[in-house]
């Protein structure tokens, strides 16, 4: 970004630095807001259909165009020409604002995503906090949609959405906390620069917490209680049709890519890889390719999970967040804090070993306490049964 601004100023001398910066910002925003959604939604819906089809032993889309590649285009045309049905009792203003906000919230996350060496919209000092803050807008959109539809299914879906999203926000923040501790900054570029070893390798438990909680935050299977079609029709977007529904869908896929991108940046080293660097155009391009490959791999894992696991019950869902992920996150924060303050023995790589050991210790502690608690509650239940008879 900075290199591009400098190039503009030197090549076109009448351009002032501020104007050049403005032009670059407008261009990059336009790419993020108009080009990226099209590519991401069309590309990843196609990938999702193909992957799910393979898992379920089907072929998947293969009619529209070669290999079914134009399926996304066909869907877009269908959505655009569909009649829009707004229920008469709906609160119209909020009803129409909700899909706009859902899409906007997902796109805004991309502002702090370092997609390639030096290519980042806003390298905020509180970058990762910005992600958490903007992500909360999506919850507001879900609640707005469910409330304004004046439909009982939609309202139930919205309540569930808020209960689920706030429950899984805390494990995400705790996992981020561990990464911030290890990197010493909330700035995305510094976090990427700190990963000489990808944090996913030295902080595997934090990575797992983040991945599971992100799947819940996006509301995908097995945590798709927000739109559990066998219970509450389609959840908060029951009453939406046509393009308004399409924007919830676009928002969901943008959120999916954004979450996977954040996971890549925090835990898989972002754009880092052999020969990638901010010095040459080739290095920048290579960094972008690494970033896309890593992000796609994370998305692929999410699709794999979706194709493999069944939807879990709402009380299990909340229990899993509050009684497993949050305590695990708290234990992890404490063990990592202790491990980072240990006197460094010998090489600096011993710091990574200490982090890994802290992670494994936290996981072991959690597993032990869960098994003890489970045994106790199981024997209590058995005693109750025996007492009754």
């Amino acid at each position, binding site marked *: 970004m900075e290199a591009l601004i400098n190039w503009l100023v030197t090549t076109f001398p009448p351009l002032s630095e501020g104007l050049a910066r403005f032009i670059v910002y407008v261009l990059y925003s336009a790419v993020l807001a108009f080009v990226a959604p099209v590519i991401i939604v069309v590309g990843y819906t196609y990938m999702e259909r193909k992957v799910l089809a393979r898992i379920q032993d089907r072929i998947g889309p293969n009619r529209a165009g070669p290999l079914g590649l134009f399926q996304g285009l066909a869907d877009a045309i269908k959505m655009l020409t569909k*009649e829009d049905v707004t229920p008469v009792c709906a609160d119209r203003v909020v009803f129409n604002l909700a899909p706009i906000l859902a*899409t906007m919230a997902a796109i*805004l996350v991309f502002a702090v995503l370092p997609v390639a060496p030096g290519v980042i919209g806003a390298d905020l000092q509180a970058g990762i906090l910005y992600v958490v803050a903007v992500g909360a807008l999506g919850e507001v959109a879900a609640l707005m949609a469910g409330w304004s539809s004046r439909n009982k299914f939609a309202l139930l879906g919205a309540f569930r959405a*808020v209960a689920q999203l706030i429950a899984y926000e805390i494990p995400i923040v705790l996992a981020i906390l561990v990464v*911030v501790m290890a990197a010493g900054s909330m700035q995305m570029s510094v976090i990427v620069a700190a990963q000489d070893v990808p944090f996913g390798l030295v902080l595997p438990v934090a990575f797992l917490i983040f991945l599971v909680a992100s799947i819940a935050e996006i509301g995908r299977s097995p945590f798709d209680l927000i739109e559990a079609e066998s219970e509450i029709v389609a959840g908060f977007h029951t009453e939406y049709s046509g393009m308004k529904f399409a924007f919830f869908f676009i928002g969901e896929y943008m959120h999916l890519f954004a979450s996977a991108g954040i996971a890549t940046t925090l835990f898989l080293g972002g754009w880092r890889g052999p020969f990638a660097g901010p010095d040459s155009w080739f290095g920048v391009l290579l960094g972008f390719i690494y970033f896309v490959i890593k992000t796609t791999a994370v998305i692929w894992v999410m699709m794999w999970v979706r194709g493999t696991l069944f939807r879990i019950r709402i009380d299990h869902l909340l229990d899993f967040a509050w009684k497993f992920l949050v305590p695990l996150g708290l234990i992890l*924060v404490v063990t990592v*804090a202790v491990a980072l303050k240990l006197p460094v023995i010998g090489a600096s790589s011993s710091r990574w070993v200490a982090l890994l050991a802290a992670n494994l210790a936290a996981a072991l502690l959690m597993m032990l306490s869960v098994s003890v608690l489970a045994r106790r509650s199981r024997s209590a239940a058995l005693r109750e049964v025996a007492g009754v008879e």
Partner: protein
Amino acid sequence: MLSEFAFVGVLVIFATLLPVAGLAVAWLIRPKKPNPIKQSTYECGIEARGETWVQFRACYYIFALLFVVFDVEAAFLLPWAVAYQQLALYAVIEAIIFVAILAYALIYAWRKGALRWI
């Protein structure tokens, strides 16, 4: 610093423009044939009865309260985590005590049955 937030501002405008433009295009080309049946509230075979916007169960409220506790905790711990590598040992011990108090709060809520979904 300020110029970075300028980018966020520009992106907000563009990100709002995308759905607004999409909805406008759809509004231009889609058919408009409303009728009372189509515009009634969606149901599954049985017509919805009674008011939808009612006071709802309180257990969501308790979860929301717990969330506020832990979110404020995160707001306190994030600056601590940023400055972590320059901090002396006593700051670490303090933070551990802070986390322990919160963990106790979670255990308390758990034992009181606030985390039970009825």
